[in-house]
């Protein structure tokens, strides 16, 4: 039998109608929905008098347009956000979809709660009207973002029209050095292959550095696959994956669990499987990374100097960021630190931030906002006393949501402000019109919050 990649295996096991001139029709095992990209899809369903085919395979939450200062949405605060979230409530009720809405103790960022509740499982096909659906690939699930029309397709048919993508292996061998996180790894990868390097491909992250990562870190890695242009990223499931999932509410239980794990063990690329493209990275060479421009590919080691603006895009980016070629980024003053988003808002991230902030204080002119990925994470962090560390350090400790990653609520930068953000996109205006974003790990963000300047976190380790 011809050796197959992990992606090949998941793809083949979900074909309802094979690809011909027309794309394949593939079956979707889990459809996650949120308030921003679903209302028009439900309207389409109503207009066509269709039902949701598999409400049992559909899960909703509110995360994008909700406030993070409170767990209650008030119409007078933001009428449009209120209407949008209410629409999600009524749509889920009308079509019988389980919803972890605002105020629910399972509410959170859609890509945080799927794994947390155990709905995200190896070998599944998972879609959501959100490009960071790639996050779930950390479990060896084929997970990718779709548009609203496709949300409608999945609601109505539990299927999607898809063409098979290419296989692209990114092997990260060796050991990461102290203070280097999955966020630094993925920023490094994107800086190497570019923001379109993965277009048309599914990335499979492999190698000993990936094996050594816990699930939170693997989610960070897969989360930003889309920033390299790849709709999906994958990590083959292993004991770390199974241990994470065991006992979670929607994970298989009892004998079903043993059966599932036995199946999941086959979910890996066979020896000799052919990838369309492969790159190998030595983990030990990766430094703390930071972005200097206006896409995640414009990232560099934190001690490096801003590169020469050799094209129009780079010139425009540096102008927007008000940075000069040849200038170091270290010690550049910052205004805001944001720790959160579907990239870096899990326990591992919060513990990392706390390890730096413990016994230290956020610099006087800096605003630090820490937003947990879910209500569950908030509770866990508080049980560990992380909230106290954050508040004692002078940081704001918020309710769960997308917050300043997308700036759809009140959490945003003022024009011209610099932020160090653990989120995924440093696009112009992403964190608020005129705001200037530098992407980095939670460790780098926390260290920079303390000094008020771009800081090499290694200065603060073990001190």
């Amino acid at each position, binding site marked *: 039998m011809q050796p197959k990649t992990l992606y090949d295996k998941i793809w083949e096991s979900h074909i309802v109608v094979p690809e011909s*001139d027309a794309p394949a029709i593939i079956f979707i095992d889990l459809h996650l929905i949120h308030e921003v990209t679903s209302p028009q899809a439900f*309207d389409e369903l109503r207009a066509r008098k269709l039902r949701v085919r598999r409400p049992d395979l559909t899960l909703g939450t509110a995360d994008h347009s909700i406030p993070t200062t409170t767990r209650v949405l008030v119409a007078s605060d933001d009428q449009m956000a209120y209407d949008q979230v209410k629409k999600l409530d009524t749509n889920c009720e009308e079509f019988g979809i389980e919803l972890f809405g605002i105020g629910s103790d399972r509410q959170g960022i859609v890509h945080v709660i799927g794994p947390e509740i155990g709905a995200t499982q190896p070998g599944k096909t998972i879609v959501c009207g959100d490009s960071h659906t790639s996050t779930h690939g950390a479990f060896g699930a084929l997970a990718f973002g779709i548009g609203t029309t496709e949300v409608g397709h999945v609601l109505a048919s539990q299927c999607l029209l898809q063409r098979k993508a290419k296989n692209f292996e990114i092997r990260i061998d060796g050991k990461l050095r102290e203070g280097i996180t999955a966020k630094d790894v993925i920023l490094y990868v994107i800086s190497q292959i570019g923001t379109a390097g993965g277009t048309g491909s599914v990335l499979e992250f492999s190698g000993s550095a990936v094996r050594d990562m816990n699930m939170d870190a693997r989610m960070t890695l897969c989360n930003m696959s889309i920033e390299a*242009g790849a709709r999906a990223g994958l990590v083959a499931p292993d004991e770390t994956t199974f241990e994470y999932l065991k006992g979670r509410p929607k994970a298989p239980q009892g004998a079903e669990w043993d059966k599932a794990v036995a199946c999941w063990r086959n979910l890996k690329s066979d020896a000799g499987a052919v990838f369309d493209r492969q790159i190998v990275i030595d983990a030990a060479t990766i430094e703390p990374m930071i972005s200097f421009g206006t896409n995640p590919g414009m990232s560099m080691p934190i001690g490096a100097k801003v590169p020469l603006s050799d094209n129009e895009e780079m010139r425009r980016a540096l102008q927007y960021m008000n940075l000069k070629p040849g200038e170091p980024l270290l010690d550049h003053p910052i205004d805001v630190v944001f720790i959160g988003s579907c990239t870096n808002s899990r326990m591992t991230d919060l513990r990392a931030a706390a390890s730096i902030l413990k016994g230290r204080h956020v610099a006087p002119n800096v605003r630090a906002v820490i937003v947990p990925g879910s209500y569950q994470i908030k509770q866990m962090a508080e049980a560990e006393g992380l909230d106290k560390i954050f508040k004692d350090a002078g940081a704001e400790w918020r309710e769960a949501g997308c917050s300043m990653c997308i700036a759809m609520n009140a959490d945003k930068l003022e024009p011209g402000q610099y932020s160090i953000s653990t989120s995924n996109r440093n696009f112009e205006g992403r964190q608020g019109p005129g705001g200037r974003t530098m992407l980095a790990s939670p460790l780098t963000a926390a260290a920079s919050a303390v000094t008020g300047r771009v800081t090499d976190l290694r200065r603060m380790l073990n001190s």
Partner: protein
Amino acid sequence: MTKLDRVTSRVVCFTAENVNTDQIIPARFLKRIDKTGFGNDLFADMKPPEVFGLSGARQRQIMLCGPNFGCGSSREHAVWALRDFGFRVLISTSFADIFSENALKNGVLIITLDAASHAQLVAAWQEAPHSEMTVDLEKQVISFSGLNIPFTGNSFSRTCLLEGLDELGYILRHEKQIAAFEAAR
């Protein structure tokens, strides 16, 4: 889906690289729960002079774009905004994956050209920025200023656009196979 076979129109030439969907439509405009009127918010913050400095931009139905156009978020609002602004055809050397899917589903034709053909069109446009271009999907040819540039694309997408095929209807016609797949799990 709206049919599209042939479009003749003046052209916008905006070839910046990596134009992302946040630039096409910033997130703060995504709180609306309908699909219409997003054209007024197109490129709301970026305001590229290549688009807004051009006479009759909203009547121009074709845009020459730069590489990796539409990267970033999956928001279909980006396509709704482009479509509502007036665009029916986008021509580049590459597009982001999710954006391409969203475009097709809204009757917007995506044409991917090799770099040399794309450069030829851009150079010709610079000579004649107010001339009309014809994009013929039936014959798969772009005609502009004496140039006739052939293009290809996958035949299913072409059929969808030419016939205005409804993709959801197409999927639902396979009900038997879907039910059989579900039963076999």
